């Protein structure tokens, strides 16, 4: 019997003047298997001035992302980010396919399981009947073969769960942590 698919969801947020990130690992039902988060980082005024516009990308990619990736004991089958995080650049490991999922407003594809390639690294995936297809964007490090393998796993997981929803849960959890800390 094949190992159950594990999905890792990464999200870094800015709450007030603090930055923090979370990494949620779920099964194909969306049930959490593990959740790690970083302590809120509040840059000083001097650090904000010295880093300038590079402060936020540096914090998210170099500090938060790498810290949480070290906590992954086993590599996930899919590493899922928000579209914003993926657009900001992915500097992490390429052992697993890194992608972003986003709910689209496109018309439904013909049948469940259909995929429409919108670009070399972007496709629409029909996961539920009559619903809008899910937009999937792969990181530059994911080649075509890895994309095809990832699509199979996305279809399998998407049958049981809403693939974009866990990112909302991570955000909600991080916000609750900031509220608890303040």
């Amino acid at each position: 019997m094949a190992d159950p698919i594990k999905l890792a969801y990464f999200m870094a947020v800015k709450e007030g003047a603090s930055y923090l990130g979370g990494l949620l690992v779920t099964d194909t039902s969306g049930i959490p298997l593990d959740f790690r988060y970083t302590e809120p980082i509040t840059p000083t005024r001097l650090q904000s001035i010295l880093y300038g516009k590079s402060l936020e990308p540096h914090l998210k990619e170099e500090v938060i992302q790498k810290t949480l990736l070290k906590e992954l004991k086993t590599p996930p089958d899919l590493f899922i980010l928000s579209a914003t995080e993926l657009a900001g650049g992915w500097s992490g490991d390429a052992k697993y396919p890194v992608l972003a999922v986003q709910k689209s407003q496109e018309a439904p594809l013909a049948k469940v399981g259909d995929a429409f390639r919108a670009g070399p690294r972007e496709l629409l995936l029909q996961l539920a009947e009559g619903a809008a297809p899910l937009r999937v964007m792969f990181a530059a490090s994911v080649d075509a073969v890895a994309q095809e393998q990832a699509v199979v796993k996305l279809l399998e997981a998407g049958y049981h769960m809403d693939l974009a929803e866990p990112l909302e849960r991570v955000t909600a959890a991080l916000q609750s942590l900031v509220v608890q800390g303040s």
Partner: protein
Amino acid sequence: MFGRMKDAMTDAAETLRRAFAGLTVVEVVPEPFAFACHGAASLAAETREGLQPPVTGCAEMRLLRNAVEGKALAPLRAELRAEAGWARWGAEAEVVRMTPLAGGQVARLAVPPLPRKAQVLGRLEPPARPLPRRLSEPLPKPDVRRMAPGLRLVEAQAGLDVMLAIAVPIRGEDIQHLPKGMWMRYSLQLVRGTGENVRNLEVIGLFRLPRKGVADLRHDPGQSRILVRLEASALRSPRAPFILARRKDDGSLLSCFVEDA
């Protein structure tokens, strides 16, 4: 029209004739022809130095006699010459002989160069010149402080309990795509488990949930899903099909785990 002009001419002639009718003839002995010759001074160029203006004269310059510019110029001398008058009118002509122009003295005028720099006038001198003073004591050197701008390393915390506090949405499986035999088996277990008549039951959905550790469960009819809040024990518990149904007579919800095929 020509008749009128003719009358006017006749009147004019009569008038003239009457006006000169009483004149007496006076014999005027003409003066002997005298050769009058007036010499004119020869023109000469006057040598002047520098940028002094050439001497010119005109009647209008008399008015400027007292002015600075007028003094620099030679006044124009005018002579009033009386003529013999009407006696010589028409009888003789007066011939004026002029001596030919004599060669003037030639002098070279040296043009002085223009000043290279314009003189600035009206410059105000400062009332007092500040005296520079030397500070004998040097300023103290500032201490250099070091502040590492690097961001501190953060540690990851385990927060599964935080995540479990948030409800997990579980999507229902499509019952229509289940094998018929399997669905009949599930229905039978539902009737046995709830003790309800199968005709009074309406199946809402089939979900896969952990057998243990489900702390709370809510139905989300808008999206055909249930929201479950799990406990930590749910993570290690195996998943089993879970049927959620509604009683037709009173609308109450019924549920039960069924054995997986």
